[in-house]
């Protein structure tokens, strides 16, 4: 029976966050809501935010785990600036997250958990639910979720703890009703997930349905917010995280090139999921190697490439530092290698679960001597497949190490991804040395166009040769201390990297190709910048957006593109690293906008910067 006063209201988009204790199942709740929304046809972006501690004491701020989703009927650029709704499962979750809720935003709290004990754990002197500051500023809906879950599951004979583990699905039921989406997909998922535990499956389904029925009947929930489906390009989609997309891009490149993938890693947040994901696909002939340390992982990847594989290693900033010596070896022996850096806030251990893009200069200049490598950056979860595929292609075709930059926001965040047709993937053609040549093999003989040396692999008859970290004589590859040769080889290695830019497509800007202001972004800030520029263009401002996928070498036509704008704005989640590079290369009227808080940009923050620079 539907509440007779139910009102239906259409929204273009909504940003909501599920927040609770680490053990409250917020990630799975968010993931299921995401799936229901994707199935309804919304565009969306998600952002999990979990603590670094595995099991922080229950009820504390340190133990709060959250999942944010922004879903809409038009293009969704980010996981959302401010929240339209917040679901807080305990006082700590409320305290840690309420600042992000819009004024008059919907605040759903599980009142059962607002006990004196939990208030103390959250360092709250008074119950915030009794304070005017909360109830007047927000649209507070107090729901005794734990009690109601017990009631919904009263017919089952389950221990108290098992029942209370279902309260997240009761909350999910409420939210699904509130945003006019069903729970069918989730019910089916529960059936699959708890196939061997039918009692638990039933409990979760009852909780889900209980939440729906409660919201429908309760006067506190008087509005259903409808977010219609978005106009997405035709095709088959799946929801994908940046780490998953990256993993799949590498596997696809390996299959397409006919070169076996060896992914060597050492556990590190937030890059470990790449190792986990790739290790599931052994039937694609891929090998994963959990090495004894970061250095070994990079060296094993180089060994794999030397033996004719696609060697890839992945880590985050602190681990990348340890790999730099080996990376320089790969640059000198001129073997393919992909080094993935899912950046996180630093320096040192920093804030492992928080995002940042401050390893750009480390990627460009973190090795001893002159040692350029190719550097690419992933823009968003739905870009991760393409960019990692490209990184592997460049490494294999140009015999060069490629650093592939991602970040915590991209790696853990998810978006719907339009699955490409297999035939649309570009060919990958590594050049192998010829075994039947009449002339003596010269390991450092180069391709005229790319300057790449040919790949000669142990086991190939007649191509026995030696490589190593000592300077090479041009062409023969023998050890050489000749001064002129060293200069020539240094320039050749740099020129080889530079020529990778000859393979880039034309640099495109979004918006007019000249004007007052160009916002230049790279990496995971793409969504926030694209969203801000779109808004400001709608408001009539002369602003365009250029997003750089290719960081090193920079595109050949970049200077031309930049020169058509009077001002350049470079927003970065670091202290101005791309700004430094652009200023070093070009004469620009450049303004840097920098944020280093471990948090992504809000669209509104970028908009403000644009407004500061142009009328």
């Amino acid at each position, binding site marked *: 029976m539907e509440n007779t006063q139910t009102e239906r209201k259409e929204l273009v988009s909504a940003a909501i966050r599920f927040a609770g204790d680490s053990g409250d199942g917020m990630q799975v709740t968010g993931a299921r809501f995401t799936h229901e929304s994707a199935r309804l046809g919304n565009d969306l972006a998600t952002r999990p935010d979990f603590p670094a501690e595995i099991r922080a004491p229950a009820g504390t701020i340190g133990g709060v785990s959250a999942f944010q989703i922004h879903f809409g009927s038009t293009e969704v650029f980010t996981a959302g600036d401010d929240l339209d709704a917040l679901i807080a499962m305990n006082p700590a979750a409320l305290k840690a997250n309420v600042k992000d809720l819009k004024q008059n935003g919907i605040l759903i709290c599980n009142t059962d958990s607002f006990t004196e004990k939990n208030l103390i754990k959250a360092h709250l002197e008074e119950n915030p639910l009794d304070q005017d500051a909360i109830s007047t500023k927000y649209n507070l809906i107090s729901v005794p979720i734990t009690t109601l879950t017990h009631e919904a599951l009263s017919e089952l004979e389950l221990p108290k703890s098992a029942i209370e583990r279902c309260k997240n699905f009761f909350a999910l039921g409420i939210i699904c009703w509130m945003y006019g989406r069903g729970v069918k997909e989730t019910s089916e998922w529960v059936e699959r997930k708890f196939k061997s535990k039918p009692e638990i499956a039933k409990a979760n389904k009852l909780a889900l349905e209980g939440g729906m029925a409660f919201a429908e009947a309760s006067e506190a929930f008087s509005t259903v917010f409808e977010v219609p489906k978005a106009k997405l390009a035709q095709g*088959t989609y799946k929801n994908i995280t940046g780490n998953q997309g990256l993993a799949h891009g590498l596997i696809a490149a390996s299959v397409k090139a006919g070169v*076996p993938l060896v992914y060597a890693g050492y556990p590190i947040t937030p890059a470990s999921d790449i190792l986990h994901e790739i290790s599931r696909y052994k039937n694609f002939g891929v090998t994963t*190697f959990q*090495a004894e340390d970061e250095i070994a992982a990079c060296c094993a990847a180089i060994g794999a490439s030397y033996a004719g594989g696609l060697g890839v290693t992945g880590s985050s900033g602190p681990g990348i530092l340890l790999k730099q010596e080996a990376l320089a070896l790969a640059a000198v022996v001129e073997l393919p290698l992909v080094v993935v850096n899912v950046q996180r806030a630093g320096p040192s251990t920093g804030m492992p679960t928080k995002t940042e893009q401050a390893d750009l200069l480390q990627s460009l200049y973190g090795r001893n001597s002159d040692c350029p490598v190719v550097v690419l950056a992933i823009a968003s979860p739905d870009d991760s497949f393409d960019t990692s595929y490209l990184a592997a292609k460049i490494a294999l075709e140009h015999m060069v190490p490629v650093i592939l930059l991602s970040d915590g926001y991209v790696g853990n965040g998810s978006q719907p991804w339009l699955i490409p047709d297999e035939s649309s993937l570009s060919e990958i053609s590594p050049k192998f040395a010829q075994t039947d040549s009449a002339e003596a093999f010269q390991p450092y003989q180069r391709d005229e166009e790319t300057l790449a040396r040919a790949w000669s692999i142990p086991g*190939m008859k007649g191509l026995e040769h030696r490589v190593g970290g000592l300077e090479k004589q041009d062409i023969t590859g023998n050890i050489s201390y000749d001064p002129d040769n060293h200069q020539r080889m240094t320039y050749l290695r740099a020129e080889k990297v530079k020529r990778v830019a000859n393979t880039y497509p034309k640099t495109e800007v979004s918006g007019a190709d000249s004007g007052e202001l160009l916002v230049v972004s790279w990496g995971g800030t793409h969504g926030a910048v694209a969203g801000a520029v779109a808004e400001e263009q709608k408001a009539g401002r002369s602003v365009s957006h250029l997003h750089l996928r290719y960081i090193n070498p920079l595109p050949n036509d970049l200077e031309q593109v930049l020169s058509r704008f009077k001002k350049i704005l470079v927003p970065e989640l670091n202290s101005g690293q791309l700004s430094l590079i652009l200023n070093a290369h070009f004469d620009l009227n450049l303004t840097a906008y920098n944020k280093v808080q471990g948090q992504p940009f809000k669209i509104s923050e970028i908009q403000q910067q644009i407004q500061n620079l142009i009328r």
Partner: protein
Amino acid sequence: MSELVKLTKKDFESDQEVRWCPGCGDYSILATVQRFLPSLDIPKENHVVISGIGCSSRFPYYMNTYGFHTIHGRAPALATGVKLVNPDLHVWLITGDGDALSIGGNHFIHLLRRNVDLTVLLFNNRIYGLTKGQYSPTSEVGKKTKSTPYGSVDEPVDPVSLALGAKATFIARASAVDAKGLTAVLEQAAAHKGTSFVEIFQNCNVFNDGAFKDFDERAVRNERQLHVEHGKPLIFGAELDKGIALDGFNPKIVSTKNGSADQILTYDKNSKILAQILASLSFPEFPVPMGVLYQEERSAYDTAVTEQVAQAKQRQGEGKLSDLLNSGDTWTVN
């Protein structure tokens, strides 16, 4: 299959000028290895010589095979990557006491426990040679060098004991000056499936001359070394008149002549306890054990990894790109 052409020592010599100091122990190891390799009847393109950094690590440049001179201490990791892609390659890992036991200690331990199928030749000269004479992790306590003018104070590591602790499946000791003994060890090392670890005493005549002379010179070798052979009693001495027996848990030297001959231990290379006893024998109280000190059969890491991939292919079918792309929950927008 390619036809088998009988290779010679010359086939394994590269055109590069050998640049070790005159009189260096590395020359004889190089010559012994080059002389030994033809006997394996393996095409030379299937041999890969991988090294770290140090005097010994120049070795690959002098071998006319595939060779990779990598970075300090990391050869085990790089070699593991090679074997993951192609387990059929015959990999020779050349390292030294500093390379394997100091900067590369971690990789060395994990190589041994994983049992990657390759052979490690550790040239132990108990000194840093390439950096011109600092004490190494195998230098004796009190070693006076440029970096320790008052003498070193830290205890050296024993490579054989370390290898036993790291669960190595093949452990041997040989000397650069005993080509016959080294060749015999190389034969068994090459035949072993898994990581074959060979410590080779190698004299650095410039920075640590005579490091092994007390027990390694021809005149004293028989008296002061214990050449072990599987299934044979542990007997040594110029007159073969002494043997190793046990006094409780501790080893002791007994004479073969005075009725205690039946106490002498018979060597079993598969016994870890015996290997540990041998590793504990310290000169000059005891002779220095040489030869294959320990061996066990255990699945090699690279074989196991390759088998897992093959099994996954068999069970799930060879991965198809379209299956990968469309895996997971998908939906269609029309």
